[in-house]
């Protein structure tokens, strides 16, 4: 704490930091600690049995599986979209660029009912998939579709600025030395954007795990089959099982914190690379 003032002439440090800490504590930290304190009422075996009950484990499997699959699809297409937006001119590009953030701006309940309407048996897409035997709405595939929508902007928005910053000279040098475009991409461009791509993937994955609104409409919410973990928390709350709901919430919180830590390390990796370059 001795570095406090750092011989700055500017006033207001104590007031600004004091208010920041007070506000964060009241709104975020104390409420979050309530979850951990409430769970401490349980003995370890009680806690363990609650969070590893078969129905809960099935919900983890769906939540993490669908989130992972959605993040993988978003990593691939996000990179493709970022590449096309940065490198190729096409009409309506600014409009497309602005629309990328739609999943951030559109309330999740709106996304949920809309995706459901598109993928049900008589929906715009559902009517073509159903005859092929592919059911999307009210199945785990529906969960995957909703999570793909929700995570779409993350990879695009983390990769885009890094692609913009890549120096053309490197690619020119590679071409001069006889590299094909594919070799240049694999050996020069891809390693440069890999940290950003991984960060975008992790952000999309983290967001998908906690997602609720867009999923519950399209999931069908069948226990053991298409029930996500956040919904299970709500179900337990509606049965006044506060302790059970909180125990599962604590598991989710711990996973979120670990992911947050990983994302911070990834971002440090990006900055570190930039500093070297």
């Amino acid at each position: 704490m001795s570095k406090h003032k750092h011989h700055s002439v500017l006033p207001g440090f104590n007031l600004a930091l004091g208010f920041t800490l007070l506000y964060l504590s009241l709104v975020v930290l104390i409420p979050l600690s309530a979850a951990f304190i409430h769970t401490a009422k349980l003995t370890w075996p009680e806690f363990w049995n609650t969070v590893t009950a078969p129905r809960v484990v099935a919900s983890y499997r769906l939540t993490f599986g669908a989130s992972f699959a959605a993040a993988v699809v978003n990593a691939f297409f996000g990179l493709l979209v970022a590449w096309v937006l940065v490198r190729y001119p096409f009409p309506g590009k600014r409009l497309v660029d602005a629309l990328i953030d739609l999943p951030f701006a559109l309330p999740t309940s709106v996304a949920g009912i809309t995706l459901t309407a598109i993928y049900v048996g008589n929906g715009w897409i559902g009517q073509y998939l159903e005859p092929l035997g592919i059911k999307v709405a009210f199945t785990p595939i529906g969960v995957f579709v909703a999570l793909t929508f929700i995570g779409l902007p993350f990879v695009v928005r983390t990769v885009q600025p890094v692609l913009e910053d890549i120096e053309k000279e490197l690619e020119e040098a590679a071409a001069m030395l006889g590299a094909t475009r594919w070799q240049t991409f694999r050996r020069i461009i891809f390693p440069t954007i890999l940290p950003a791509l991984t960060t975008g993937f992790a952000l999309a994955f983290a967001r998908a795990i906690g997602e609720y609104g867009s999923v519950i409409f399209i999931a069908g919410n069948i226990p053991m089959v298409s029930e996500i973990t956040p919904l299970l928390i709500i179900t337990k709350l509606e049965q006044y099982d506060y302790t059970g709901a909180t125990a599962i919430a604590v598991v989710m919180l711990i996973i979120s914190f670990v992911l947050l830590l990983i994302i911070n390390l990834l971002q440090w990796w990006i900055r570190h690379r930039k500093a070297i370059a």
Partner: protein
Amino acid sequence: MVDSPSQGNRIKFMSITQSPHTFTAPQTQEAPWARWVLTGLALAFLSLFLLLPLAAVFSEALKKGWEVYLAAITEPDALAAIQLTLTAAAIAIPLNLIFGIAAAWAIAKFEFRGKSILISLIDLPFSVSPVVAGLIYMLIFGLQGWLGPWLREHDISIIFAVPGIVLATIFVTVPFIARELIPLMQAQGTEEEEAAIILGASGWQTLWYITLPNIKWGLLYGTILCNARAMGEFGAVSVVSGHIRGLTNTLSLHVEILYNEYNFVAAFAVASLLALLALVTLALKTFVESRVAQKISR
């Protein structure tokens, strides 16, 4: 870096380059067919996941014509939902605005230990599931919660009432303005403020006349994003709302209730209002981004 550059490959590269820049800029573009395929794939993906849902909202909302549409968005419960949504945003945004400025002032203008931990803590609400955000307020203010008995004695309701909705909205929108301002104010440094202080301005004068004009676009940008989330939040407010029609229903909760009652056209009509809000948000955001870009390039 490049493995076995064959002579034949290089010659092929040179010969298909027809631009007048051949000698200064060698081939750093994909072949035209590759560009077409990649652009087509990207646009197909975006059409499937962005354009189609957007079109579907309005198409479903207007399925039974304008009259049904207008009736759905002007019935009393819908109007009450609009009012509550606006109220929650009108309380949450100013509070998070003050928080954002205070946090950015402390973090960007001073050096202190634990700064990076503080920045991570500010981002924390982004990584917490909205459902968990609602749950933790239940644990504090709910009937079985820490303050539950005291609140009941004094006849104050927070959970299943408007204050709970406001609190949940504040929680999920805490980081939006702070995270825009912190990097912006860090990049601007402290010279201008220091000059103002040395010339005799007070701290508040410095903030008002020097700092705020410098960060106004960042402030606006953060506020736009904060507003979109505040008005659209679903999971967190769903837990604390209790879904009382006309009383504790925000717009996005109202969408859910109508939908679960199989009143699809009305659900999509209300949803289309939120979709319009999203489109306005994106337009404003793009406009502000272009202003910021201009400022930096100048």
